[in-house]
């Protein structure tokens, strides 16, 4: 399943890149992209584990850029 989320207060392009790299390293994530320009994140992961993986994604984002909020 591929899902996209809007991001709020994503203020630095370098952090967006770091978030993308970080999310891609999470176990189970097939693909991910964080677009600084669109303020958008897309995550591709298997359906049955998607919610668990998203928890990890949120954790990763909070670690790298605590100000950035993921809107669902």
């Amino acid at each position, binding site marked *: 399943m591929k899902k996209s989320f809007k991001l709020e207060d994503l203020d*630095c*392009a*370098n952090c967006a890149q770091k978030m993308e790299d970080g999310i891609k390293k999470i176990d189970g994530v097939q693909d991910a992209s964080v677009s*600084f320009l669109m303020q958008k994140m897309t995550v591709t992961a298997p359906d049955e584990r998607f919610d668990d993986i998203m928890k990890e994604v949120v954790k990763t984002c909070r670690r790298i850029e605590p100000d950035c909020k993921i809107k669902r």
Partner: protein
Amino acid sequence: MNKKQKIMLGRILASAVLLVGAVLVPATGAVRLAVFLVPYAVVGWDILWKAVRNIAHGQVFDENFLMALATVGAFFTGEYPEAVAVMLFYQVGELFQSYAVGRSRKSIASLMDIRPDYANIERDGTLVQVDPDEVAVGDAIVIKAGEKIPLDGVVLEGSSMVDTAALTGESLPRAVQPGDDVISGCINQSGLLRVQVTKAFGESTVAKILDLVENSSAKKAKAENFITKFARYYTPAVVIAALLLAVLPPLVLGGGWADWVHRALIFLVISCPCALVISVPLSFFGGIGGASKQGILVKGGNYLEVLARTETVVFDKTGTLTKGVFNVTVIHPDDCSEAQLLELAALAESYSDHPISRSLKEAYGKEFDASRVSGVEELSGRGVRAMVDGRQVCAGNDKLMEEIGVSWHPCHHVGTTVHVAVDGVYAGHIVISDEVKPDAAQAVAALKTQGVQKTVMLTGDAKAVGEAVAEQLGLDEVHTELLPADKVTQVEHLLTEKSQKGKLAFVGDGINDAPVLSRADIGIAMGAMGSDAAIEAADIVLMDDKPSKIATAIRIAKKTLRIVHQNIVFALAVKALVLVLGAAGVANMWEAVFADVGVSVLAILNAMRALKSKD
């Protein structure tokens, strides 16, 4: 400016005033430090806080930390005014950067402002506004003058002028009347339209385009990947260099700690690769946005990169260089009447959707009984075979006639000739001709001025027709009488002929040429208004039918690439220069701040030029 930016501006102004005050106060020692710490805290407290918090999260080389370290370091080496000023200018740069990025994001978003907000649907006699997502195929919707067409459909009632500019860049409105197709995203200008929906919102043209454009930033250009990789190594490398610079020279040469620490701090200020990380993707995004304003959809920055190096352009003829609207111009029966010959051909081709079949049916102009036709066989690249009123009718080109062993004779009219044979006996032929698009010749000439070295036309059409068109348009090469598979072979051959660095673009109308579109370095589909196949198979989609847009696309691609290269060279050169000067003790904090945020701001301003494109 949003609320957050306004607060930041207030803090910057307050801090600037306090800094001036601090410089004027004739204090010394601890009092002087305290006086300078006030403006520093006002403008930089959040940077310090983020730096501490991010270290707790294991983010060491983050720009907040580096700025905090550089300014705190400056306080330790006794340069109070510099410490405050560096933080102040850093924040000014950040504010400007966020403002500029916000602005360009908005102007790009407004280009793509084609998403319809609602659809008017009739329920129990009254019009209600519903989400376009909730409208089902087959529902009738009402579009008032001035409203956006929310879903693709067919006009049931009413006539109007429709503005397609948001999708095609074409300023001339299109007239529609009952029976015509309308496409979502266009604006109904004058009359009231009742439209029967033919596609659900998720499948509609507007949804497909939005999806395509929104995902275009995911397909990264080589230059973007380079920057990403570069950024990964740049910051740690500069920080390590700074560390060595602070420690090694004093140990080796002895003493002078404050001076070398100061030089190291300059390194830290320049260590963020922000100018590149923001401006390069922004340039590509701007280029894609500017292109879409012209009705050119580019599926990713990587395609702009390839397009800028186009050396060979291969065209499909029908529907690309010519209008693809065939008209029956000549009917030459052998022994029956003209009407009979046309009827036979139209019936035999009645199940085919090929442009030639459509024009035969149009010329016939009458409704016919489908039960008269059976056993239809489409023979790719040759024609059709069908049973009509119990007789076997073959309609197609000379290859088909040879194949079934019917003696045929050519026609002196230039055009596509459809020969007809009934039960193995030649019955005559019909000539259909197509018209060259008005801007086709100009399109070919414009490509040459954009540095394209070779233009080639591939067609399944007869030699005489193809060569006549090629000569009229000034194409370098033409290959005729090709089957769909031959087109792939031809393109493969052309791929071997071009230079190593040059690229080959194939331009087709998206019908039947998906394999060629994907085989070429870059596939361009045109006339995509409503054709899903084209949008999916191609890398670049031209929303209107104009081949001249290809040269426009190449020009935009070249301009974008030029801006990207300017930014990369400029940012790297300034940073390298200041690093060298800083290490040598010539540059001070001021230059370092310029090399960081100043370069960033200039690169962003340059990147925003990519968005602007002329016709």
